[in-house]
């Protein structure tokens, strides 16, 4: 009788280090991490502990000084085109929304599909459906300046989902929102995560926000000090 194959984590980090200023600053100092498919993970820790640096490495926005990162067993080191990798695998949600002011909500959502070999029409249909679910079906042609903070973050959330990535990286997604809007955005994020089996890695300072995650990873001084337990 053969043993069942071990289940690969969606994301694996091994001895991940990131140094800046020719080694003067150590943003990450040997991070080991496994995150399972469909997990909602919160990364917490004081400012400067390396949370966002870790998120940048996972998002292939930066390259580690040393160590290995794997997505579904594929090493990041073997990625030929980081842009294509991000487009297919990662959706970003930022604290300050990062919407393009000259584009309508719909065009902002469709921005990650520009240059993709697939036709834009299905993406547009998907965008409209997602906006309806976010309660923003009537705001498609509005510009970011015409939207409230909560609406902007919901548009950013749809943009993160538009290419149907398996992994969502959210950097303080509620940091610029009031309590009611923050709760609404987190509800929607959780809803989509459960419905689609998405893996969400969220960086946050706020214990009330991190409490929504399945697991809380604590970091300090560039290291994971508590890998957390699945709640």
């Amino acid at each position, binding site marked *: 009788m053969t043993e069942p194959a071990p289940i690969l984590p969606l994301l694996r980090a091994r001895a991940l280090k990131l140094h800046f200023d020719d080694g003067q600053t150590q943003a990450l100092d040997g991070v080991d991490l496994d995150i399972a498919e469909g997990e909602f993970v919160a990364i917490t820790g004081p400012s400067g502990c390396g949370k966002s640096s870790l998120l*940048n490495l996972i*998002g292939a*926005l*930066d390259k580690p000084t040393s160590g290995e990162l794997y997505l579904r067993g594929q090493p990041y080191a073997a990625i030929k*085109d980081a*842009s*294509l990798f*991000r*487009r*297919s695998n*990662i959706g*970003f949600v*930022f604290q300050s929304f*990062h919407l*393009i*002011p*000259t*584009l309508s909500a*719909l*065009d902002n959502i*469709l*921005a*990650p*599909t*520009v*240059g*993709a070999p697939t036709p*834009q029409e299905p993406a547009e249909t998907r965008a409209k459906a997602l906006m309806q679910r976010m309660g923003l079906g009537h705001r498609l042609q509005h510009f970011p300046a015409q939207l409230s903070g909560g609406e902007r973050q919901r548009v950013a959330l749809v*943009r993160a989902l538009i*290419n149907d990535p398996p992994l969502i990286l959210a950097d303080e997604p509620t940091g610029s929102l009031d309590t009611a809007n923050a709760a609404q955005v987190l509800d929607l994020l959780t809803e989509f995560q459960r419905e689609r089996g998405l893996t969400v890695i969220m960086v946050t300072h706020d214990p009330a926000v991190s409490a929504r995650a399945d697991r809380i990873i604590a970091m300090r001084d560039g290291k994971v000090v508590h890998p957390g337990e699945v709640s």
Partner: protein
Amino acid sequence: MNLSRYAWSNLRRRPARTALTVSAIAIGIAALVALTAISWGFEASWQKANDARSTDLIVTRQASENAMPSPFKAEAVQQKLEQLPHVARVAGLLSEMLTLSPEAPPMFVFGWEQGSYLWDHLKLQEGRWPAAGEVVIGALAAEMLHKKSGDRVEVEGETFRVAGVFQSAALVENGAVLMSLDQMQRVSDKPGKVNVLNLQLDREATEADIQRIKAQVAADLRGYTAITSGELVSQNAVVRISKAMSQATILIASLVGALVVFNTMLMSISERTREIGLLLALGWQRRTVVRLIVGEALMLSLAGGIVGIALGFGLTWGLEHLELMRGKIDAVFSGGFLLVVLSLSGILGVCGGLYPALKAARLQPSQALRQE
């Protein structure tokens, strides 16, 4: 979302800067269009005048590079030319650029051999052909001088009666005063002299015969040359200067246009560093960023090109109707040339936008996103 719509929205973000950039390109293109059209028109006008006279070859002093070749004693040369095979007719021409009225700009006064074939292509609009002591004037010259047949006109202190008003296919002749050669030689104090001798060959003359005549003139008439009207025009110093000026303008306009686009796009990407970083983070490939920035540069330069062509038309029309220039400019525009100008605008847009585009595409998304 469509890339060109996004590029357009980026240009609209800074309307004043976009308008200034388009204006700068447009001014260069307008100067280029106007100067080139005038230069070609000037050449075409002289060419038309020579062609209208059905002249096959023109004999002038060698190395004469004035607007009109230097005058020379015609009689001996004319006799020799008349002996050459296939030469049917020889007619002398003498001209001067003179001020005939304080209200009118200087204009050409031509002296053509009376009864020669040179007169054949002209159409009399009113009056009759001139006799001794008379001139005929072109329709445009009549308008500029406010003269009609029966009036008097003063040439170099001598008064002539206007016998008639004629029409010619060539603008340069329409704006001129015409009299017999001997009269012109007297008033200009150049007895027996002409600027050129026009040769009309018989119907049997072939291209090879033309070449033989040219060679014979070079061999037998020392100091003289036989050339076609096209060669005379292209050797004309004014034509050459105007062509050189138009080429210099093309160079300067291109350089300035590319630099203006370069500067604008460099400013634009520097303001949009975080946005470009975001696009890269969202999965845009670097080549898509290059396409966006070059696309914006292309839109700017093509808009400048289109506005510039329209301005160039206006500028040329204005110059043609300037009192001082009337009868001297007959600008030539061709669809092909306008297409070349638009292509040139496009090329300078791509050249000016390429470095900023490559610079933008090289941004590190994580660093760009951190930028305030």
